């Protein structure tokens, strides 16, 4: 059945998705819903988007055959090198798309939420590029533990506002960004960092990230004579890099999709971010999806060593891929991810982001045939995580 895994016209993926926003946001979200597909399909938009991805971001990102890693796992492993993008991760694909959208809607002011600061940096970067005012909300606790990214955003001209409500982390930064949008309904565009939020955000962000799987198809055809790998492995917090890596393969069920969530200190430890396993159906940040919560429906604080996976919800498309069985959801603990990250350093000379290291950790949990083709989406580089690596391994 075609389009079964994509958003329907109301933004539903099976039972998940939709736009559960208070009336104060309705007109903004509705404006975007009515216009986003038309804008994305305009020739001038496509031209500008693709040009920037090429000349500014440095796309296409290489599909690298990881020879020594392949040898270890007795199969063929490719790494999709999103870590080589400008600003060091896949996040910039989305912020380029959304800032072009904001410009075409005539918005003057950009707001964004950020957890560890990667999306904040990617947003501040495109705002500098386009000369637009940029306000980034970041949990007070995250500001304290991610000082270099706070400095980066400031250097790029952004204002960083601490979120001091609730647990003072990513979910609260998102709440503050949404409140700011409620308070500034006319001139402000909200650049959401993942495939979360009210429709059309999950679909729009997935489309901007879909360049990842679009390139993969061409690159695999060139290298292996087939567009289709046997497995695509990607980490999932909110789920934007996975959404992009899966996008053009969703309807091709021969390609197995593996989503890897953060198990933190262990699934049953009470310190985890494995939303598909631990979450219940509900509404978070305007979307019906799976989210971690108490039995009374209060949203709980997740935990992962990786700030990028530390989100209590998951994109509605991923909730649907999980429930429908289209994707297999695995998880990796802090320890497994850190070891997998270090292994990539030693075997391939690449220091991965700890988020991406979770995807790598899945290799050890799966069984492959010698001729299988596996693509691991290496969503970001590890420079930002150096302190965590240093503390963990006592370098």
């Amino acid at each position, binding site marked *: 059945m075609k389009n079964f895994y994509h958003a329907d016209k109301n933004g539903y993926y099976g039972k998940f998705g939709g736009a559960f926003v208070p009336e*104060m946001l309705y007109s903004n979200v509705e404006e975007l819903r009515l216009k986003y597909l038309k804008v994305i399909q305009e020739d001038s938009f496509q031209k500008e988007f693709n040009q920037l991805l090429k000349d500014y971001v440095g796309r296409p990102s290489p599909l690298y055959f990881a020879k020594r890693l392949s040898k270890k796992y007795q199969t063929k492993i490719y790494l999709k090198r999103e870590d080589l993008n400008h600003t060091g991760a896949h996040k910039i694909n989305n912020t380029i798309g959304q800032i072009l959208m904001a410009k075409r809607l005539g918005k003057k002011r950009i707001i964004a939420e950020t957890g560890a600061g990667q999306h904040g940096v990617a947003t501040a970067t495109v705002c500098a590029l386009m000369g637009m005012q940029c306000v980034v909300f970041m949990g007070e606790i995250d500001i304290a533990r991610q000082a270099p990214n706070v400095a980066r955003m400031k250097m790029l001209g952004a204002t960083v506002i601490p979120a001091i409500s609730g647990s003072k982390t990513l979910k609260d930064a998102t709440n503050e960004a949404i409140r700011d949008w409620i308070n500034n309904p006319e001139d402000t565009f909200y650049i959401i960092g993942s495939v979360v939020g009210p429709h059309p955000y999950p679909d729009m962000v997935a489309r901007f990230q879909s360049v990842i799987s679009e390139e993969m198809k061409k690159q695999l055809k060139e290298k292996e004579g087939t567009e289709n790998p046997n497995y695509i492995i990607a980490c999932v917090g909110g789920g934007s890099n996975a959404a992009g890596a899966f996008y053009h393969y969703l309807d091709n069920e021969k390609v197995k999709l593996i989503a890897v969530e953060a198990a933190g200190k262990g699934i049953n430890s009470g310190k985890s971010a494995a939303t598909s396993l631990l979450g219940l159906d509900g509404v978070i940040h305007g979307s019906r999806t799976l989210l971690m919560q108490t039995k009374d429906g209060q*949203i709980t604080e997740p935990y992962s060593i990786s700030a990028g996976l530390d989100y209590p919800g998951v994109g509605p498309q991923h909730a649907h891929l999980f429930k429908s069985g289209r994707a297999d959801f695995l998880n990796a603990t802090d320890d497994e991810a850190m070891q997998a990250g270090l292994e990539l350093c030693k075997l391939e000379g690449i220091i991965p982001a700890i988020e991406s290291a979770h995807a790598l950790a899945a290799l050890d949990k799966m069984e492959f045939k010698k001729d299988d083709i596996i693509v691991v989406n290496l969503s970001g580089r590890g420079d930002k995580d150096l302190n965590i690596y240093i503390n963990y391994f006592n370098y």
Partner: protein
Amino acid sequence: MMNRINQKLHEEGKLLSIYFTAGYPKLKDTVSIIKNLERAGVDMIEIGLPFSDPLADGPTIQQSSTKALKNGMTTEVLFSQLKDIRKSVNIPLLIMGYFNPIIQYGVEEFCNKCFEMGIDGLIIPDLPVDVYHEKYQTIFKKYNLVNIFLITPQTSVERIRFIDSISNGFIYMVSSAGTTGARDSFGESQKDYFKKIAKMDLRSPQIIGFGISNKKTFQSVIQYAKGAIIGSAFVKFLNKNSIGDIKNFINSIR
């Protein structure tokens, strides 16, 4: 039987509705706050079911919600506190809460429980009008619950007409773009918006909320609508004063 909200809306005169967060300042204050509000002459009460992530609320109600949850407020606790409320309280009572805790309780079970306790209506800011209309309207009606919709200065005329057509109580008119919280006064653009809505001759009466904090703001909005709602200013009052003094707060408004 006519719902108490509709009875009240049919009465002469302007209405004062008060919001407070259940479980704040203390867990067991709920019933006593309600009784004192009725005794002080309030026309309607919105009982806030606290939520961890209240997107539409400003700092005052956020903080009261966080405190209420810390105090141990839950849906079950609130329902047990309100179990016998109709033995002593006659004015309309609404529950205002976000959708997620209601989903967890079960929408139909939640509505059923409200009906049993004598709750007259619900305000769920993040339950969209169309989703309510398609999925939940029959359930709400089955349990004789009025669902209250919000409109804002950004809501189109066409959409206001649609909301009016499916409303069976009052329309909650958000005074200006923004989250909940006290504002000092209302400017010309707000007054133009109030006048525009008043001229639309809607079938549902309108009650204005967000930013009504004192006599001045109350008086300035009720000339355009059936009544007004005070939330954050009352929550702030409770933070500094005893429940026994609620009548002083209400007397200062009217």
